[in-house]
Structure formats: C-alpha cells, structure tokens
C-alpha cells in the first residue's frame, strides 16, 4: 500500500490578465520510508508540488491521498525544509527548534530534552542559548533540520535545502540528513536541480519537464547505491552510468521544448 499518492494533480497560477499551468497531470505515489527526488530545471513546478502536499497551496485539479484517505481529512504531519534555513533571528536556537511544538502547544520537558539530544546528534552542542546570527550557514541549516524533525513528521519535504551552502558543507550535510532520515525511517521528498544530489540521496528519481510541469521519466536508483552514504555513492561506478542517462534525457527534453530559457547546468559532474 502506498503512503502518499498524487492522482492526476494539476495546478494553475492565476493573475489578473493571465494564467499559467504550473503542474499538469502529476501522478506518482510513495511508499512509507521511501526517499524520492523530484529533479528538474528551475520553473518546472517542483516546489509547487511540495507546497501542495504541505497544504500551503491548494491544487486546482486531481486528488491527493494519504494512506488512501483524501489529504484534507488525513491530517498529515509534515516537516518542511526550505532553500534557506529561515530561522527566526529574534529567537534563540532552542526557541527556534521548539517553534513547532510551541505552535501545537506541546512544551513538555521531554520535548525540550529531545531537542537538545537532536542538536547534539547533528553536532551542535552548547549553543542552545545562542542566536542564529552567530552561526555559520551549515550550522543554521542543521538547526533547521532539527526544527523539522522535532515534531516527528510523517513525511519530510526538502526543498533544495542544500542549495545555499558551499560545496563542502553541502556534501557533509547530505550525509548527515541521509543518515538521520534513514535512522528514523522517514518518508521524504527531495526537490533539487542537481542530478548528483538526487542520485546520491534518493531511492527513486522523478525527472520533471517544464511548461507545464510534468513528470517526464522515472529512474530507479540501483539498490547498491541506495544503501550507501551520499558521499560514497558519488564514487560508485554505477553513479556515473545513471548520471549520464539522466543527463542525456534532460538535454533531450530541453531540445524538444521550444523554450529559450537556459536550463541550469548541474554544479558538479
């Protein structure tokens, strides 16, 4: 049984004089504990899919099911990580981490203890009373990760969470996130435009097309790669084979579409 299903989901953005179809007929499902990557050029509606699953925007057509129940009734607990950490600068680290529990009126000592433990686990001890402005980008994104995990979400939505970081920090954080999500066997969706990152982290890659956003092709990541840390995946012989396959397909899509937009090239090959 699938955990989350998108069934012919479409989305339109309306403006006064115009409308654009951001998503066209998106259908896929995710099993519990699975890590899926949505890969595609900017503007293909990847992030829109996450916002729809998060319930932040309403899709205009189709249906979403969680455990075979429509999303609206399912009360899906989600964790959302954005491109940047978006820590609240006026709150201390511990208050930032505990914002989710605060909103759901859970301010027990146990949750606090959990928060400190999780911070320790991501290598951030003794900074609970500091403020975000004294932390580096990588540290801040780790705090954001803890903030996301503390509410024990059923599904994690990762919206290019590493894109604002420098390359080295990014590789380290990929490993950390991958390990933590594996440890707690979280169902996750990663949005990225980086082919390498998609292969390194996920079990399955949904390659997207732009204008309107749709799923062009699904790639299964070989089992040997799924169980390796992202950093090691990048050195595996099968990594390059899959990378080339996706690269080729991406370029073909680009050539087919009459878009003149330059598709962002992956940052590393």
């Amino acid at each position: 049984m699938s955990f989350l299903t998108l069934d012919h989901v479409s989305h339109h953005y309306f403006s006064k004089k115009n409308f654009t179809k951001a998503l066209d007929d998106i259908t896929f499902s995710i099993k519990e504990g699975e890590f899926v990557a949505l890969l595609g050029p900017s503007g293909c509606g990847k992030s829109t899919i996450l916002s729809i699953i998060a319930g932040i925007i309403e899709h205009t057509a189709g249906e979403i099911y969680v455990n075979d129940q429509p999303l609206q009734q399912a009360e899906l607990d989600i964790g959302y990580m954005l491109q940047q950490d978006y820590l609240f600068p006026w709150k201390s680290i511990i208050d930032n981490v505990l914002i989710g529990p605060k909103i759901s009126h859970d301010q027990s000592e146990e949750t606090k203890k959990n928060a400190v433990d999780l911070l320790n686990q991501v290598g951030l001890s003794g900074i609970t009373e500091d403020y975000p402005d004294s932390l580096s980008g990588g540290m801040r994104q780790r705090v954001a990760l803890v903030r996301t995990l503390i509410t024990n979400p059923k599904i994690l939505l990762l919206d290019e969470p590493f894109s604002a970081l420098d390359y080295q920090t990014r590789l380290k954080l990929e490993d950390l996130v991958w390990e933590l999500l594996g440890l707690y066997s979280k169902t996750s969706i990663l949005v990225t435009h980086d082919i390498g990152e998609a292969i390194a982290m996920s079990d399955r890659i949904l390659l997207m097309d732009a204008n309107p956003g749709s799923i062009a092709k699904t790639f299964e990541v070989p089992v040997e790669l799924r169980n390796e840390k992202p950093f090691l995946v990048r050195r595996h012989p099968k990594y390059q084979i899959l990378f080339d396959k996706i690269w080729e397909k991406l370029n073909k899509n680009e050539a087919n579409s009459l878009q003149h937009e330059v598709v962002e090239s992956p940052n590393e090959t």
Partner: protein
Amino acid sequence: MKHESDHQLFENYQRNLKREKKFVLVLQLIILVSFFGFWELASSMYWIDPLIFSSPSEIYSVLLDKFSDGSMLTHLQVTLFETVLGFLIGTILGIIMATVLWSSERLSNIMDPYLVVMNAMPKVALGPIIIVAIGPGYLSIITMGAIISVVITTLVVYSAFREVDPNYVKVLKSFKASRGQIFKEAVFPATIPAMISTLKVNVGLSWVGVVVGEFLVSNEGLGYLIVYGFQVFDFSLVMSSLILISIFAAVMYKIIERIETFLIKHTK
C-alpha cells in the same frame, strides 16, 4: 618598511577612531558656542532687534525666573504629559489598526481609499472640530497629539507587516500554525524595526499636534506660553519655550534610539 605588529596596528586603528570622535565633538561644541555667542553679540550691538530676537542672556534669565517661581515646571509638565500620552496613544492605536487590516485582506482593500484620504488630510486642520467635539482641555490636546500620527503609523506598519518574508510564514504553516500564531511568532517580531522607525517620526509629529492644540485652546503648557508671549510681545518667553521644546523633543528621540538598540539586537 613597516614593522608594526598586529597589536600595534589595532591600537593605531583604535587611536584614530578616538581622535576622529573627539574632533567631531569639538566642532559640534564650537558651532554651539559660536551660535549663542554670535546671537548674544548681535543682540547687544543692536545688529538684530533684541525685542524680537531676544538674546541668550535674556532667555537664561527668563528661564531662571520662571523655573524658580515654579510656573515653568507646571507648563513643562503639562506639555510633556500631553505629548507622551498623545504619542503613545497614536502609535499604539496605529499598530492596532494595522493589525486589524492585516487580519483581513478584504477589509484592507475596502479601507484603502479612506486611509489614503485620511493620510493626505492635514490633521491639524481638524483642531477646531476636535476642540468643539471633545471640549477645550487636556483631552482634545492629547487627541491632537495622537491623531496626527495614527494614520501614518497604520499605513507604515501595515505595509511592513505585508513585507515580512513569506518563507517565515511558510515555515509556520508547515507546523499548522493559525493566522494568529503566524502573526505572533513571525509577522509582529519581524516588523519591530519598522515600528521603531515610525516611533521616531511620531515623536516629532506628536509635538506638532500638542503645540498646535495648545495654541488653540490651552491656558497651560509650552505651546500656550508661545502664544501668550506673542500676544504680550515678550519674545524672550517665546524663545525660552521653543528651546525647551527642542531639548525635550530631542531627549524623547534619544530615548527611542536607546530602546531601539535594545530591542533589535537580534532582528537582523
């Protein structure tokens, strides 16, 4: 060839910083002293009419006189009380109105033209109506001090509310926050710097409202003293009141600056 150590370089930097600061302060003092000195000189030499422009020594003796018989203190207290209260009411009411507008986009769309008109209208022109409606006295003067800043506060704070980074809201929405919680946790604290800058503007505005109010009805306060001095042709009294107003307006401004550095330590 340079042989200075890191520490020496740093000391040099600090010394230059201090010297620059001292230089600015000295120049500021020179301007102050020469302004009053020249004024005194011009007045005593009859380059300017001392009856109209008074002189620092004359103002000093008026102030000394009025403070020692206690009358100035009363006037000062009255005006300060009215200004501070008008300022607080105007600012707080403006923030509340901005919050109400934020709570409903439809309401803010409906109210938009009325706010524009109310903002464009010169509020002091309402003075006579306020006095007739509320009655001559403290209340209408405080109302003047408040009304002059309330609409602009509403507009500025409301637009600041709307400019809060939507990603903060997104984070909170992912935790299923209500609109009230979003306001309390993200929108309001993110807007504090903008609110402080409206406070700085409002300080000046409230003085305008209160002084004009006192012109119109009062028999107490610094604004009253200015009008009274004008009527009896005692311009030393007018100047004394003016100087007191300037000093206390500046003090209020400085107090807000202090509050600012305290409040926005971690908002950037």
